[in-house]
């Protein structure tokens, strides 16, 4: 992994063998860039790159590549997320070119949540291609310098291609194969869904390692600290593909009033400690949803600071 | 909300049912559909027992209430019959 594919900070951190640490931020529901800047300020210097979500949960927000561009202005490296729900292959390719042109170097390829539960359920979805095909498309543009239709493009967008993996969705026995498929399609790094069921994740990683997947790709474990018992219950019940063990909910409940958030952070820290040692895990992706200001504290307590300069 | 449903909601299209004021001397005309084997027999028995009920009830015999077609009920209402009673 010596020849850098994109030269992004994230890629450099990972290829240098550091334990990577990425954050996440949702663009504003409006054109309020001040609020965006305020949120990302908490992350500056705390993480190696910040994922900028793309109309996450099918709720309309500022476009992810525009928000990514603002991050670049602020001196923070974005991880530009792109979903297949809202664009056909024409728009996807033009957006990739545009993103690269404004300096974006990381792109996370996703299928995207269905619009049914977003704020425009009346929308016609696109899904011209799926996430797997998006990965392959990005790789083709970068490595072959070709559009999907085999036409040559002049300057290839050199992106560090990421993909998501949810070890907890069903059918669980297929999940590691799907990971392998994404890697085979061209994913350079993987960010997983939030992990709460450590037993299942350990098992998943063991299989991935057995298949040698960790040698072909960097796997970043997803962590979202629980803020409250209510949040844990909501995630357990309402978020598809989320596996929150009853024991964790009980642990949070047992922490007592006013102390659940701290207990949630403690659990996240324990997880990060384990991921540092876990074979095949190359870093942590911290999704502190609307809790960006807690990222420095968590990074600090997790012993992840300072972030390496590469 | 579908386009249609919202059209209904926005344009305030009148609902299917319309209510009317009922005059005080009004009495309803009622049509009963009765299964030959049970309800029609019950109607017979009420006669045998000389049980009295208003004359504005008429009965159409069916071989079984399974034969009761949607259109029978609709036609009755359409023609101005006030109440339909299906028994079987």
């Amino acid at each position, binding site marked *: 992994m010596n020849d850098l594919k994109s030269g992004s900070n994230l890629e450099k951190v990972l290829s240098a063998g550091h334990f990577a640490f990425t954050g996440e931020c949702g663009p504003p529901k409006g054109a309020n860039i001040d609020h965006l800047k305020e949120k990302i300020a908490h992350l500056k210097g705390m993480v190696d790159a910040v994922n900028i979500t793309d109309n996450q949960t099918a709720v309309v927000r500022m476009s992810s590549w525009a928000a990514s561009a603002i991050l670049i202005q602020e001196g923070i490296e974005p991880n530009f997320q792109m979903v297949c729900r809202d664009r056909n292959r024409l728009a996807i390719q033009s957006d990739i070119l545009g993103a690269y042109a404004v300096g974006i170097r990381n792109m996370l390829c996703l299928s995207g949540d269905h619009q049914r539960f977003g704020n425009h359920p009346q929308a016609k979805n696109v899904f011209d291609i799926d996430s797997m095909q998006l990965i392959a498309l990005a790789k083709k543009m970068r490595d072959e310098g070709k559009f999907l239709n085999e036409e040559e493009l002049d300057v290839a967008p050199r992106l560090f291609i990421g993909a998501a993996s949810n070890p907890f969705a069903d059918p669980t026995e297929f999940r590691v194969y799907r990971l392998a498929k994404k890697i085979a399609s061209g994913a350079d790094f993987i960010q997983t869904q939030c992990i709460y069921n450590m037993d299942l994740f350990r098992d998943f990683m063991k299989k991935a390692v057995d298949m040698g997947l960790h040698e072909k790709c960097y796997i970043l474990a997803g962590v979202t600290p629980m803020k409250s018992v209510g949040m844990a219950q909501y995630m357990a019940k309402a978020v598809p593909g989320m596996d929150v063990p009853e024991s964790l909910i009980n642990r949070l409940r047992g922490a007592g009033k006013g102390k659940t958030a701290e207990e949630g952070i403690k659990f996240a820290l324990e997880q990060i400690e384990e991921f540092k040692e876990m074979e095949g895990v190359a870093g942590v992706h911290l999704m502190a949803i609307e809790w960006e200001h807690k990222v420095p504290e968590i990074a600090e307590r997790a012993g992840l600071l300072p972030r390496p300069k590469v | 909300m579908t386009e249609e449903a919202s059209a209904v909601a926005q344009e305030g299209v009148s609902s299917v049912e319309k209510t009317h004021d009922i005059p005080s001397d009004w009495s309803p*005309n009622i*049509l009963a559909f009765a299964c*030959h*084997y*049970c309800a*029609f*027999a*019950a*109607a*017979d*028995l*009420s*006669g*045998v*027992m*000389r*049980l*009295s*009920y208003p*004359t*504005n009830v*008429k*009965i*159409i*015999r*069916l*071989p*079984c209430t*399974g*034969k*009761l*077609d*949607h*259109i*029978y009920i609709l*036609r*009755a209402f359409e*023609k*101005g*019959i006030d109440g339909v009673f299906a028994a079987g």
Partner: protein
Amino acid sequence: MSNSSSSSDKRVRGSVLIAGGGVGGMQSALDLAEAGFKVHMVQKDSSIGGTMVMLDKTFPTGDCAMCMISPKMVEVGRHLNIDIHTFAEVLSVEGKPGDFTVRVVQHPRYVDSAKCTGCGLCEQKCPKKVISGYEQGLIERKAIYSLFPQAVPSTRVIDKDNCIFFQKGKCRACEKLCEAGAIDFDQQEEEIELKVGAIILSPGLDRYDAKVRQELGFGRWPNVVTSIQFERILSASGPYRGEVKRPGDGKHPERIAWIQCVGSRDRHNANPWCSSVCCMYATKQAIIAREHDDHIAPTIFYMELRAFGKDFDKYVDRAKNDYGVKYQRAMVSAVREEPGTGNLILRYAKEDGTLVDETFDLVVLSIGFQPHSDVKDLAKTFDIELNEHRFPKTTQFRPIDTSRDGVFVSGIFQSPKDIPETVMQGSAVAGRTMALLSEARGSEIVTKELPPETDINGQEARIGVFVCHCGINISQTVDVEQVVESVKGEQGVVHAENVIYACAQDSQDKIKALVREKELNRVVVASCTPRTHEPLFQDTIRDAGLNKYLFELADIREQCSWCHMGQNEDATEKAIRIVKMTLAKSRLLEPVSTDSVSVIPAAMVIGGGVAGIIAALSLGDQGFDVHIVERETELGGLARNLFYTLDKSDVQEFLKAKIDEIQAHPRIILHTGTEVKSTNGFVGNFKTTLTDGTSFEHGAIIVATGGIEYEPTEYLYGENDRVITQRNLEKRLAVGHGVRSGEKFVMIQCVGSREEPDNYCSRICCQDAIKNAIAIKEKSSDAQVVIIYRDIRTYGLRETYYSKARDLGVIFVNYIPERKPQVEVSEDKLRIKAFDYMLSRDVEFEADWLVLSTGLRPHPTTEEVGKIYKLTCNPEGYLLEAHVKLRPVDFPSEGIFLCGLAHAPKNLDETISQAMAAAGRAGVILSQDKLAVSGIISKHNRDMCMSCLTCFRLCPYGSPYIDEEGKVSHNEVKCMGCGICASICPAKAFQVNNFKDEQILAMIDTLADGMNM
């Protein structure tokens, strides 16, 4: 009419005398008449109907008893080959099987049945009131009366003892009023001689006279009633119109007590037998009473709860759980009235022995059955032997044969039983008789010769309208002339007139004449209900050459004049409207041609156990080919493990004799070691292929797949070889193992029965235990036998064996399922601990043998066979009959019948009865040359059909099917004309004959046209 060949010198006659017109007798009559035998029914009462007509509703469906039985009565009354002799009695019987001469006395009714139209006017006007026996003394009737409103025949009868004219020489009000001139005070007793081939006795039973039990207060306290009185109280057509009131003061009772076993199971004051039905009818009455008035709190005082029949326990559970019926196990020692309130104080001992006085508002005495007081005379008349209890002597293996050949017995007269078993035996004696008289089948029946039908194709409607006065039944309320005037000039009406009695012979003749004279092609009669009178008028116009479906009846009596009395103007208007609606339909009536299909005179019996064997023999003896299909290599089924019956008959000897008979029978073909692979076709025309490749055609199917015995896992069975089943014990005793003096036997009842997952009574185990206990005691009187039981359910005459076992010193210990007996093994001895619920203390027994009374289960093949023929099973896996009360051996699908353990657990004699019943029912079909398809069926228009399968999925009778071309076709033979297909078809590809959409819509439109809006 013409007699189709009869000669008096023939040895075997094709006619049957049935003494008794209850539900059992009617079943026999209809089966026999349909199967080609002439039937003479002799009934002592003035109407047929028997006991069932007095009942309000029947369990478990809550169907109205009269609604179920009334169509049957009408059918019997109208059948061309059933002659009813009511108000008549048999005087003597001479001759031999095949050729009896019976003398019958016909008592005078003083009403000429040929003239009486049953209009009932005489009854209304008769000034003399008499206590009504039918209504159990709760209200009065008139001196000229009909037993009940739906009586068949409807001819009234004058009660001579109470008639003012007969007693005082003046009045004759009825005679003056009768427009038909039917009153005949000079009528004399008549004697008739009947020649018949066989005799069926089905005269029913009397009920115990509750006054004998003085301590219970019946006859003394007005609010103590008998169960039959309570049936009338509950009945919507009864004395209180279905309102639950007490006779004493008309108040609505809330606390109602039932006292069970009044007159039953009591050797000292009453009858020793169990009446079989009281536990269930009391439960039913409690439920129905609650349904009438939910303030009612029922309590049933009982000693043994005998819910032994199919789904009976479930019904009792429903009573307890859903209706709050309280079951109190206690003997009520006295009932006395609380002064001033009319309430009743019951004294009884609670489980713990304390004496309690509890107050109730109404007390119902569950009175049992007993033979009529003149039963000995009856036995003498028919020359049959009675048993010690004055019931006809029968045996376990020949349950419906009396001591006299050719004289058979059925129903409660044979022994106490409920309605379905009575109906079953009704069909069984019919089957038995069909076999006896098979060579004379068809020899004495009359068939009707009809003129050719007029072709009305293309003709405009020419309608004749006849409006009936029904004496004054209609005309006193409805202006009949005005009705006639109103229809004159209506489209298509070419004749309209009013007649005094449309159903009288002169009117019938007039209608026929007018059809010919005025070339009528539709006839409308406005009179009474089509339910009873439509067939009569249909026959009339058919006699005049019109297709019978060109007739339509307008009901202006039951549904107009009778329910709008005193509202003459409105009633007349309504009558006009009804007639015009009927006219609208009539204009659109079309002739309906009824098809018929041939019948293959052969049957297939699935299962070669006792049920299958008996059914096959009966059918073979009736003259039909029979294929028995038995999956095992040997016949006999479960009976191979039985050795003797309660009355000590030898089962193995019986079985061997029957198998020999089967093997020697020229008409029976045995297929053993094979099973049904598939059956195609429909009633009359089935084709079956067996797994061994054999295939054959047949017209009927009898499902007798039998049962298996539960293999216990409880009470150390299989672990200790001293723990055995009743069947093991029976074999030991039968093959000659002696019983040591002092040998100790403990029996536990309900092993694997009446508990989840098999929460039903297996019916046979109580009597099995008692049978074996008696056998032990008879081998060694000082052997110890203990029976640990929940309820001893020795119903009917079996009860006497229970008493006998007690007399022999068998110890009975009552347990409740919450505290089951415990079994321990210590030093080679079995120790059984139990909690005796009655004595409320722990008891302990040492035993050499622990005998488990294990239940029955349906045979596993029952479900498979059920799937082949689309038969449904109850949750326990027993096949569901077409109707629990009146069609106990039929299935909803025509041509398929049921008997034996596949239906429900039952004793050997009951299996034999049911097998003969199934054979009788099958015989009815197989004896037809052609099966007529009903006219009222759904017609399928294949051009309009797009095979959406909606009808195919929804038809309850499976008449739409997917044909060879893969499209939906309709098998009209299976169609019952319910019209579900027509009302649901999205393409409107179905129309029901005589109920076509256009016909119904025309009626609706005509109704609407006449409304004041």
